[in-house]
């Protein structure tokens, strides 16, 4: 079943700088981008093209590495190399800075909202993962600092339905966290990658986790609990996608609507993988359904599926651009 990726639009979002991240709003109608120019831009569709709706330029003193929308779509969080995380509140057509979360000792690499909207996670080169709680009065409080990694933490992602968090690190490992007695702790460590793990994505049901790495592979993991009801948690690697990517894989995204898996690679390519529906779920088989070798003229840093429109994909690159693609599984 051969698919295709059709380019819809290319936008020079952060001129003369890297575009590090693109994130769709929960409604799917806005796209936030951020980059090395220290700015965040919000893009919306006008007719057939994506136009810049607003620029948030004064929030950070250094590169903005990631942006993440709250599940309700009213807030935006931005993680920066300036060691802070900024929370922005959407007001009509603009955003205002609500608060700045401080505490990390150096660059914040990622920020992620829990599906409940009341928890936020951040991670940093300081090797820690911080969990923050937000109340109805928009007050943020750090409730846990977890130091399970031995190196730079690159990415954090929440489970789609359970209060479970996963983190990826320069130490080549993935950690899984759960709350125990009001404190968050590492419950499992996933080993197997041979180099930095750059990003993670849960499948739509939250049964499996995909990780991508500098070792040029994507691994699919699944939790296996002992049948006796004990809280022993272990995760096993179900399969490894290797031989597809020419260089470091910087991002992986699992589409909630179609189950397709997209990757962003340092060889300038974007790839979409689909699962063979006839394979044994315990031994999944993924095949490459679509591949654009020169999706951008430089490294692709991020890939994001639109949450409402099936097949709509955003990618961004070191060349400061983002691109919008339409993926179809049967071409």
């Amino acid at each position, binding site marked *: 079943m051969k698919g295709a990726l059709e380019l819809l639009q290319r936008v020079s979002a952060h001129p003369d700088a*890297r575009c590090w991240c693109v994130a769709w709003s929960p409604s799917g109608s806005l796209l936030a981008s951020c980059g*090395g120019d220290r700015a965040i831009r919000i893009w919306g569709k006008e007719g057939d093209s994506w136009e810049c709706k607003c620029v948030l330029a004064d929030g950070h003193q*250094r*590169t903005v*590495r990631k942006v993440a929308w709250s599940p309700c779509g009213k807030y935006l969080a931005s993680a920066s*190399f300036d060691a802070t995380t900024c929370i922005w509140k959407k007001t009509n057509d603009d955003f205002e800075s609500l608060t700045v979360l401080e505490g990390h000792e*150096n*660059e914040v*690499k990622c920020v992620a909202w829990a599906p409940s909207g009341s928890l936020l996670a951040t991670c940093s*080169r300081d090797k820690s993962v911080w969990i923050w709680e937000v109340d109805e009065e928009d007050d943020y409080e750090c409730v846990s600092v977890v130091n399970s990694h031995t190196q*730079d933490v*690159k990415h954090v992602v929440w489970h789609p339905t359970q209060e479970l968090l996963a983190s990826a690190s*320069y130490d080549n490992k993935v950690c899984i966290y759960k709350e125990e007695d009001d404190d968050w702790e590492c419950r499992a460590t996933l080993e197997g990658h041979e*180099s*930095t793990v750059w990003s993670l994505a849960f499948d739509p049901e939250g049964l499996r986790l995909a990780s991508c790495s*500098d070792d040029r592979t994507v691994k699919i993991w699944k939790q296996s609990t002992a049948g006796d009801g004990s809280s022993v948690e272990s995760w096993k690697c179900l399969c490894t996608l290797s031989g597809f990517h*020419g*260089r470091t894989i910087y991002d992986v995204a699992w589409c909630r609507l179609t189950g397709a898996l997209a990757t962003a690679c*340092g*060889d300038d390519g974007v790839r979409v993988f689909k699962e063979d529906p006839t394979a044994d779920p315990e031994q999944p088989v993924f095949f490459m359904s679509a591949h654009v*070798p020169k999706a951008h*003229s430089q*490294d692709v840093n991020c890939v994001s599926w639109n949450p409402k429109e099936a097949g709509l994909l955003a990618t961004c690159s*070191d060349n400061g651009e983002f691109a919008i693609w339409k993926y179809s599984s049967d071409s």
Partner: protein
Amino acid sequence: MELVSVLLNRAWRLTGLSDKRSRRMEEKALEVYDVIRTIRDPEKPNTLEELDVVTEKCVEVQELGDDEYLIIIRFSPTVPHCSLATLIGLCLQVKLQRCLPFKHKLEIYITEGTHSTEEDINKQINDKERVAAAMENPNLREMVEQCVTEPDD
């Protein structure tokens, strides 16, 4: 006359392609070397070339595709001090990113056996996020600028 030229062409094509390619790689390698040899050592008042930190042979170029090349550089730091080796790696990254006119991907390594923590250093130098963040640190940036800026810049 025509027959001879046809034979010559055929002979040339048989051996010429691989020769042409390796000549092109050598040319590219020299282009790269020209950019890095004048980088100054962070501590000593000499260039990396003068100190044998880099040599012509330390640059390897491979073809990646349409006009795109993979450049692999193996440098030998003069002292085993870890932070200086990382700084040299950073200088190499920055100067090449700025000055190389052709499309390329870059890998920088410390020559095997020249350093006790070479794996650690190699990993840092080749992590573009770490490099980008380091260059936003004003002190590090200043040090790198001093090493890479040409006197007539």
